[in-house]
């Protein structure tokens, strides 16, 4: 089914209207509410962009490869839960740079959606 313009386009435009024509006219608590709504829409837009670039499947593959190398089983679709469990059960060395790198990959993938500016800290 062709249904244009696309979701990302609609959300981007709606967010811009909210910022330029609505939030700009407001003050105090109501401005804060409008900015929160724009922030939520920004996350949705970035999540769509990330999907177009192969997420979250790509991050999931990285985690699965890490677990497979350590014989922690096939964890398709639930790799994050398997990783959390293996750490909780102390089956992984917390100091292992490869583990830390995987944890960073997961966290950065979320931040690219939730708050890309935070990655520059």
């Amino acid at each position, binding site marked *: 089914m062709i249904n244009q313009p696309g979701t990302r386009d609609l959300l981007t435009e709606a967010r811009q209207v909210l910022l330029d024509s609505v939030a700009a006219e407001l003050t105090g608590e109501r401005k804060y*509410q409008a900015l*929160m*709504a724009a*922030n*939520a829409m920004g*996350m949705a837009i970035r999540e769509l962009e990330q999907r177009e670039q192969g997420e979250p499947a790509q991050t999931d593959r990285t985690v699965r490869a890490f677990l497979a190398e350590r014989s922690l089983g096939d964890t398709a679709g639930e790799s*994050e*839960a398997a*990783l*959390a*469990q293996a*750490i*909780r059960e*102390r089956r992984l060395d*917390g100091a292992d740079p490869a*583990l*830390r790198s*995987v*944890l*960073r990959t*997961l*966290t*950065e993938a*979320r*931040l690219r959606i*939730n*708050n890309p500016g*935070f*990655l520059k*800290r």
Partner: protein
Amino acid sequence: MSALADIFSSFIAGQTGARSARVIDFDKLSGGAIQDNFGLTLELEGGSRPGRQEFVVRQDAPSGVAESLSRPEEFRVLQVAFKAGVTVPEPLWLCEDSEVSGQVFYVMTRAAGSASPRKLVKADFSEDQRRNLVRRLGAELARLHTVRPPQATLEFLALPDPGNPALSRVALYRRYLKEIGEPHPVLEWALNWLEDRAPEPGPTVLCHCDFRTGNYMVDGDELTAVLDWEFAAWSDPCEDLGWLCCRSWRFGGDDREVGGVGDKQDLLDGYREASGIDLDPAAVSYWEIMALVRWALIALQQARRHMSGEQRSLELALTGRMVAQMEFDLLNQIQELEDGQ
């Protein structure tokens, strides 16, 4: 609203023995999703507090949730802190009869100034003003931490279990994470790190446990009141300092470790000057890691309140999406601590 003002003013007239009480001003103060805070200015005639008086009335919001202290418990903590010389609003009267206003409430004096974090972090302070304010924060904590268990009026506060407050927190946060039921490998990893490196505990003292920028009032460059005592607990002194220094509470003033206001050394100096106790900066750093984990779990719990339908709220929903920030800070800060920066 005005009916509520009349209820509170009659209550205060009764407590002070005033012949009459006239409402000059009544408004709902910002902050607090769990509690409602009302500012109430009265003209009292006669009684123990005659003349124009400014009060704050604090009561549970209709949608109150209980993970923290009840209003009567909070009132008792506030009384103990006031007696210990901490700069707090003076706790005046507790009304445990919910027939009076519909909720249990208490009345305290109103402090001058603002608790707004953005305003404070953006303030055009000199280095001296910053140093004095941060030393004062240290001194306030030092005075609070003179309160040791047992305290007859604070029997509702449980002692850390196990006896090491850090390990007690790790156990509690593991339980929270399990209850949330969502995989968070970074938090699991950080909890292991905290478990393996728990410092020798300091004395068990009365801690505020939410002592951060945004929860104390400042008038000009002067601290006027430490607020929001609902998370008070028996714990390690460094828990309060770690929470205050946590990266999440700098409100854009990232290079100023103490709540976006000033330097950690001044905080420790202020603490030592008021108490004679030298706290170990490494223990404070450890509790900063604990603070990031705690805030991540609180954020996850807030998101759950939204997702379960218990309290639908965009603000709570967005708080859930902040957890990756705490996780990112955990990865960086643990690495920096290990590298000895």
